[in-house]
């Protein structure tokens, strides 16, 4: 059962074994596994329930429907835009389906530096296998690699850079190219078409437009989640009270710490250590139209500039990226005629994204009721340098791939480079928040996992230190920046948390 709460016309007051907050890569997996094991599960999702029939492939429709704050969520200084899902299925509805397991070097670092000896590849293997089967993860076929990715692979290979065609979670893809705006064909195996229906079929009650505002977790007795029924614009339309033996918080690395802070739970580490995987798109323009927005947007992955075995803390990857008119316009510097001179060549445009495995850390602080959390983040000097270096390598690959012009998107003073230009000019510019359209689709680590309660929020199974029965199951539990696309790691850790709750038996069930 998936119900949009404003339609019921009354408050929601109910009980369950487990209340799951959020329905993205973490919450949907936890809900489905728990419901399949016979637990009575309630899922509260603050966003709306959209289906493929609602996915119009138009940015003016889909940005407000699918994204937190209509795609305009930002750090408090406006320097970094944070794209997070706000709908049933969460960010998996708009993500681009890279399907990576946790890098072994990262797992090793988590074990050794964060007192998490349990997090071995062997211990996670079952969860990875289950998640990948349910999401139908498979290699991307050669005939599914689109023009832009093919060109960029050619460029990287000419330069001798390491890269590969990745795995993804799509089935019968028609290569329309609108993954970012929701799949109109249900080919993308997002939580919306996999785990959420599985949870529902197993008896979970999934409520859309249900915003959790506070968790009560007394030392004994049931826990409670209190909140509001909200409409599409976030206005309160009623109240919610759910009593449960266990709570699984999966509201993302901004929403989860926000809720814990409102509730006075989790200790002083909640909301700290925010990592963002900050990214910047460098645009290349080819002599002829390449219509880079058609086909699977991202299939090739350049990992030449990240060596997690040597340095698990730092590095960056390069990922092809296209976009639709609004997103490209926003990422194109300037305004007026100079801006249109770039936009006129939209069909010839292909982008390469530099995505940082960031050492820099920020924080999330709680906002007022129904207000916005405060997100603070500043790149440190090393990360600013890496971002500049990454943009230079983007330009290098784009030229090698055949681009005749590259635009580095310094927003108010664009850097337009012609073939043969001095790429060192990029490093001579000031690289920081506010000068570039820096975006993040991977906020993480704000409720980090660790063996030491003094330096972490949750234990190896995602349970709050000192607050039994309250779990976190989303990207906020990553002890550090992941350094890779996070979908599969998030889902696998949530699967592990769910099976831990199941194994606890009657302690956490009615």
């Amino acid at each position: 059962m998936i119900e949009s709460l404003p339609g019921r016309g009354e408050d929601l007051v109910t009980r369950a074994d487990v209340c799951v907050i959020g329905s993205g890569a973490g919450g949907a997996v936890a809900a489905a596994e728990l419901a399949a094991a016979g637990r009575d599960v309630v899922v509260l999702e603050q966003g709306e329930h959209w289906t493929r029939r609602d996915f119009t492939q138009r940015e003016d429709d889909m940005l407000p429907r699918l994204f937190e704050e209509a795609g305009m969520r930002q750090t408090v200084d406006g320097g970094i835009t944070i794209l997070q899902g706000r709908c049933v299925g969460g960010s998996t509805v708009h993500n681009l389906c890279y399907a990576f397991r946790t890098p072994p070097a990262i797992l090793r670092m988590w074990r050794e530096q964060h007192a998490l000896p349990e997090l071995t590849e062997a211990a996670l293997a079952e969860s990875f296998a289950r998640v990948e089967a349910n999401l139908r993860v498979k290699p991307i076929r050669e005939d599914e690699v689109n023009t832009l990715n093919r060109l960029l692979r050619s460029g990287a290979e000419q330069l001798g850079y390491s890269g590969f065609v990745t795995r993804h979670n799509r089935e019968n893809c028609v290569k329309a190219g609108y993954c970012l705006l929701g799949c109109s064909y249900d080919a993308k195996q997002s939580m919306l078409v996999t785990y959420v229906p599985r949870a529902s079929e197993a008896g979970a009650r999934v409520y859309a437009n249900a915003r959790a505002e506070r968790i009560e977790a007394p030392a004994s007795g049931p826990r409670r989640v209190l909140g509001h029924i909200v409409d599409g614009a976030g206005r309160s339309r009623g109240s919610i009270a759910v009593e449960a033996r266990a709570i699984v918080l999966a509201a993302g690395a901004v929403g989860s710490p926000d809720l814990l802070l409102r509730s006075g739970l989790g200790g002083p580490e909640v909301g700290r250590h925010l990592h963002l995987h900050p990214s910047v798109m460098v645009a290349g323009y080819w002599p002829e139209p390449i219509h880079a927005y058609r086909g699977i947007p991202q299939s090739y992955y350049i990992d030449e500039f990240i060596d997690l075995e040597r340095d698990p803390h730092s590095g960056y990857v390069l990922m092809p990226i296209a976009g639709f008119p609004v997103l490209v316009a926003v990422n194109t510097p300037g305004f007026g005629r100079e801006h249109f001179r770039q936009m006129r060549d939209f069909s010839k445009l292909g982008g390469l994204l530099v995505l940082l495995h960031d050492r820099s850390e920020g924080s999330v602080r709680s906002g007022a009721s129904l207000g916005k959390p405060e997100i603070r983040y500043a790149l440190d000097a090393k990360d600013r340098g890496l971002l500049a270096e990454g943009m230079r390598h983007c330009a290098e690959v784009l030229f090698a791939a055949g681009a005749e012009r590259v635009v580095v998107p310094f927003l108010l003073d664009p850097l337009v480079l012609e073939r043969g230009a001095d790429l060192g000019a990029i490093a001579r510019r000031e690289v920081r928040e506010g000068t570039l359209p820096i975006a993040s689709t991977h906020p993480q680590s704000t409720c980090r996992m660790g063996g030491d309660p003094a330096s972490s929020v949750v234990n190896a199974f995602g349970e709050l230190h000192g607050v039994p029965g309250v779990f976190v199951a989303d990207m906020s539990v990553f002890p550090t920046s992941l350094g890779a696309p996070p979908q599969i790691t998030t889902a696998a850790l949530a699967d592990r948390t769910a099976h831990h709750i199941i194994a606890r038996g009657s302690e956490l069930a009615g």
Partner: protein
Amino acid sequence: MPNDRPSRRSLLVPTPTRRGFLRLAGATAAFSALAQLQVTPAATAAAGAQAPGDRFFDDAETEILTQLMQCVVETGLPDAPRVRDTRAVATVDQVCRGLDPAISGLLPLALRLVEWSPLVFDLRFARFTQLAADEQDASLRSWTTSRFQLRRTAFLGLRNLCFLGWYSQPEVWSLIGYQGPLLPRAAGGRVPA
């Protein structure tokens, strides 16, 4: 013309006056908050208390937005559609109506500051909507080179809102070679579902 927020009508000042200037000071403070996308609980509550109506922006704000957008998206092409001939401003209005009031609540004030910026920042006795096109362009450029980061950041926010409205219009797509959606045939599109 429908206007669901009469309380903000009082902000309309036809010519620069001391009272208008004082109101502008308030708007500037609010604008600073907008630039950081930070909103006080009181502001959020006030914005949320406004009943959703037919339009988000009133007539004056709509005119400021229309002229601002024309300047931001100017193509220089003689045959290109004008902002007034499209639904670009209506699209922005519609998106703002659906936004969380914590985000949308201060946009009208931001537009008022654009309107008064020639006086406030450039010491010209004119409003933005009274300027010729090239003067409007110059006025907006002064935002991009401002030594105040808040002002530069706020301009980028308004710029992006204009792009959202303009580049969502199908009649604009042909100007840039965008072929448009590939929806399933069942949804009126071109691809067999």
